[in-house]
C-alpha cells in the first residue's frame, strides 16, 4: 500500500522565557492510503500538535516528514500552502466556515486557491457534487449561520473533499455537535473511508474513536498504545 504520511523522529518544543514544553517527543508514524486513524489522549498530550504538523499548519522542531512521497519538512510558506490545498482536507471542531460567504462559496474556496484553472461551471459542478455527497445540495445559497451545527460540519466536510485530497485531517469533528448530529458526521466519515478516503482524526471521545480502524493513544508527546485491526496496513513505532 502507498505511504501517504511518514513521520520520523518528530519532536515539537514550545519555549517561553521561563520554561520549555515538549509537545511531541521523537514520534514516528506512517499512515497508508485508505487508513482511518484516530488519535486520542488526555488534554495536553500533543494530539492537536501532531495533527497540526501532519496538516502543515505547524512545523516540527526536529524530525522529517514525507507527505505523499515528498519531503515537506522544510517547505516555503507558499509551497506549504500548495501542498495543503492539493493533498490535505481539514475538518475542524468549530467548522471554520466563513460567515459572510454562502455555502457554495465556502465549499468552492479551496478550488479558488488551486493552481488548477477551472471554469466557473466546473467549479459549480464540483461544489454541487460534494454538497450532494453530504446531502446539502439544496442549501448551496444559504449562509453558514442559517444552518444547524451538524449541517455546518457537513459543509466543512464537503469543503475538505472538494480538491480530492490525499488525506482528511479531522479535529474533534463532533465537539460542537449534539449526539445525533455527531453520529451522522461519524457515519459520513466512515462512509468516506469505505469509499477510499484516508482519514486521520483527533478525538477524545472513545466511542467515536472506535469508528477508526486504528486507534492511537498519545501521552506526553508519545504514542503509548495502538489498537489496530490486524488487516489494517498501519505501522506504528514508539
Amino acid at each position: 500500500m502507498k505511504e501517504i504520511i511518514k513521520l520520523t523522529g518528530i519532536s515539537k518544543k514550545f519555549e517561553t522565557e521561563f520554561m520549555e514544553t515538549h509537545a511531541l517527543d521523537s514520534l514516528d508514524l506512517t499512515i497508508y492510503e485508505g487508513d482511518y486513524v484516530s488519535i486520542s489522549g488526555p488534554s495536553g498530550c500533543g494530539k492537536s500538535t501532531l495533527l497540526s504538523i501532519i496538516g502543515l499548519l505547524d512545523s516540527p522542531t526536529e524530525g522529517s516528514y514525507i507527505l505523499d512521497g515528498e519531503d515537506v519538512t522544510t517547505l516555503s510558506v507558499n509551497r506549504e500552502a500548495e501542498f495543503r490545498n492539493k493533498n490535505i482536507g481539514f475538518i475542524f471542531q468549530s467548522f471554520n466556515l466563513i460567515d459572510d460567504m454562502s455555502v457554495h462559496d465556502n465549499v468552492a474556496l479551496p478550488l479558488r486557491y488551486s493552481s488548477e484553472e477551472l471554469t466557473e461551471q466546473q467549479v459549480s459542478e464540483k461544489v454541487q457534487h460534494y454538497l450532494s455527497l453530504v446531502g446539502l445540495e439544496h442549501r448551496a445559497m444559504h449562509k453558514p449561520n442559517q444552518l444547524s451545527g451538524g449541517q455546518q460540519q457537513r459543509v466543512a466536510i464537503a469543503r475538505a473533499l472538494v480538491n480530492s485530497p490525499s488525506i482528511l485531517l479531522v479535529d474533534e469533528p463532533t465537539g460542537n455537535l449534539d449526539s445525533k448530529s455527531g453520529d451522522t458526521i461519524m457515519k459520513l466519515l466512515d462512509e468516506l473511508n469505505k469509499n477510499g478516503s484516508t482519514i486521520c482524526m483527533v478525538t477524545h471521545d472513545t466511542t467515536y474513536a472506535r469508528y477508526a480502524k486504528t486507534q492511537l493513544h498519545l501521552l506526553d508527546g508519545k504514542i503509548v498504545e495502538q489498537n489496530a485491526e490486524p488487516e489494517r496496513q498501519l505501522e506504528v513505532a514508539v
Partner: protein
Amino acid sequence: MKFLLTRAWHNAMKSSSFLAVVVTTLGFSLSALLCVLTLAYLILVEPLPYPDQEKLYRVDHHLTNHEGKSEINAFTYPGLVDFYKNQTEFSLGAMVTYGKDVLTSLPEQPTLNTGYVTPEWFQLLGTSLALGRGFTEEEGLESFIPQAVLTHKTWMDVYGGDSEILDKTVSFSGVNFKVIGVLPETFVEPEIYEVGRQVDIWLPWDYNLSSGMHFLWGNINPMLMYVGRLAESDQGVKAIERSVSMYINDTWQEKNAHVEYYNGWSIDARLTPLADVVTGDVGSIIYLLIIGAVGLLIIACANITNVFISRTANNGQNLAISASLGAKPRDIFRQYFIEYGIIIGFSITFALLLSYFGFVLIQNHLADILPRAGELQINFTTIVCALLLAVLLTSIFALFSVKMINYGALKTMLQSSGKGRGVQVSKGVRTQLMFLQVAVVSILIFANISLFKNAMEVMNKPTGFEYQDTKYLILSISAPEFPMPHEIIPVMDELKSELLALPEVKDVSQSASPLSGFRILATTLAGESTRYTPQNKWVGDNYFSFIGQELIDGRTFSDVDIRDRNSVVVINEQFARELAPEGSAVGTKFDYGNNDIHTVIGVVKGVAIPGESDIPIRSYRPAPESFTSLMVKFNPGQDVSKEKVAEVLSEIDKLYAVFYFDPLESIVAKRLFAQTMTTVVTAFLACLLFVLAGVGLYGVLSYNLHMRRAEIGTRMAIGAKVSDILKMILKNTFSVAGFGMGFAVLVVIFAYLNVPGDIAEFLGGDMVLDLFITLLVISVLTFIACYLPLRAMVYKPVISNLQDNQ
C-alpha cells in the same frame, strides 16, 4: 489596591511599542493644548503683576474731526505734559514714550530700544531694583538730570553683568547719562506701545526724542502716553472719563482757538484698563488656538482609541478569565482606569517636557504677536490643566474600553466555541472608524501640503533684484541740534569715499534699501485730475544698477539729477502700464502739488518684495545728497563689521553713529518669517498627522485583522498563499479607504467651489497635484498600516491563527 497597581504597571509596560505610540501621540497633542491653555489663562484671566493692577489705566486721547469722524488715538506733546501736571483723578501717574537710539559710549555702538519716563513709572509698577535705584521725584519733569536705569537683559548682554555698572556713563544723542540702577530679572515690562517691543534702557522723560514737539498743540504722536493709578473715589470710571475729557478738550480748544483748521474738532479721553492695553485684541486668536489644539487632541484621541480597541480585543481572554472569576464591570473599569492612568501619566509628563520647549519657542518666535509671551512658563495653571486632562482622558479611554466589552458574553466566552464575542467592535463601527480616519486625515494632509507649498512658493519667488552680499546702513546724528543739509553732505561724501576705499567693499549707493518701506506719495497727472498713489522711494544715481533692477525704457538718474535735485522720476513697469498701456510712459509729467512738476525719465522692471504677493505701482525720485542711508555691497564672501563702520564714521565726525547696519538677507529673512513659520509648522503638522494617521489606521486595521484571524487561518489551512491573503485584505481595506479618500476629494472640491475667492484661489493653485500627493501619501500609509500586522500574521505557523477559534 497594591495588586491592581502592580498588575496595571505590568500591563502598561508589557508592550514598549504600544507605550511609545500612545506616549508620543498624546504627548505632542497634549503639549500643544497645554501651551495654548497656559497662554490663554495668562492673557485672558491672570492679573498683571503690578500692585493695584485693576486701578491702572492708560488715558487714550481720541481726536474727532469736524465731521464727527474719529481721527486718531494720540496725545499732543504739550497736551500730555499739561495733563500730567494738572490732573486730579489719578493718585499716581506717569508719562511714557519710546524711541530707538545708538549707544555711542561703547565701541560696538549698539542700537537700543529706549524708554522715557517720569519717576512715577517704576512706582506704578511696584518695581524694586536689582542694583541701585530708580528715578526720584527731584529727577522728575524738567529737571534735566541725565540718568539711566538698565534692564537686567541689557546689563547682562551689553555690560556682561558688570558689578561696577552704577555711576558709569551711557551716551545717547550726544548726552551722557549716569547709570543709577538695574532692574531685576523678574521685572515684567507692560508692552503698552507694541507687543514684543521691550525697552533696553530707561531714561528720564526730559530726554525723549519727541521733545522738539513740546510747543506743538496741533501735532500728535501715538508714542506719547499717560498711565496712572486711579485715586480712591466714589465716581465710576465713566464719570472720571467725562471729567478727564472735559479738562483735556477744554485746554486743547483754548490752545488751538486761533487755528481755523481745528474748528469743530474735539477730544474724547477714554480710560483703558492697563490689562486690556497689554493683552490687546488677541482674544479671537487665543480662541482659534484653543480650537486648533483641541482639534489636534481629538484626532490624536480618535487614533489612540483605535489602538486601545485593538489592545482590549487582544486582551479578551484575560478579561474572560477575570469575569469568570467574579470580576464585576466596575472592577474591570477600575483595572483599565489604573492601567490607562499610568500610560497617560507618562504622556502628560512627556507633554509637560515638550511644553517647556514650546514656551521657549513661543518666547523666541511669537513674542511680537502674542502679548505677555515673556511671562510664559510651566506654572500652577499648566499643572492643573495637565492633571485635569489626564483624569479626563483616562476616564474616557477606560469607559470606551469597558463599553466595548459585552460583560454577559464575556462570562461565557471561556466555555463557548471561543469566538471572542465578549470583546469586539462591530464590523460596521470598524468600517466607519476607518472611513472617518482616512477622510479626515486626507483633508488635513491636503490642507497642510497646500499651505506648505504656498509658503514655499512665496519664499522661493524671484525678487527681481540682488540683495546678496549687501548691507543696509542708516546713520544717526548724536547732536542736540540736527545739522543742516550742507553740513551733512561733506560727511556723507567722505563716508562713501572711505567705505569704497575698504578692500572688502565693492560698491556703495546712497539710497534707501529696496526692502525698506516705501512711502505713499499722492500725485496727479500734470494738468489733469487723474489721481495716483504710487509707493515712492528716494534713491541714488547708481541705485538700479547697484541692485540689478532692469531698465526697460528711457534712462535712470544721472549724478547731475542727484546734485541738482532735478524734478525727474523713474517708475516701474506696473505704473507705466497704467499710464500708457500701449506706448511709452517716458515724458509723462506728474504734479505733486503746489506746481511741483516731475517728469518720467525711465521705466524699470517691477521688483517683488519678499512676502508680498503683488507688485504695486511704484515711483523712484532722486535722493538728496544729505540722505543718511546707504547700501554697501561687498566682494563675494567678504564683510565689514558694524564696529569698523562706526570707527570710520567716528574718524570723519564724532557726532555721527551707526543706527542700523544689517545684511539685506536678514531683512528678507524677517519679511519671510510668516512663510518660514508656516513652512515649519505645516511640515511639523504634516509629519504629526502622518504619524497620527499611521497610528490610527494601524490600530483599526490590526484590529480588523485580529477579528479576521480565524478566517485568515482557515483560508491558509485550505491552501491560500500569502499573496492570496494579501490581495484579499488589501482589496477589502482599499474599498473602505477609497471611499474615505473619495469623500475627502468631494469636500475639497466643495470647498473650492463654495469658499470665498481668496481661499479658492489659494486652493486652486495646483489642487490636482496636491490631491494626488495627498492620496498617494494616504494610500502608502494605508498599505503600510495594513501590511505590517498582516505580515506578522501570515508568516507565523497557520495553527496560531486558528487556535483562537479552536
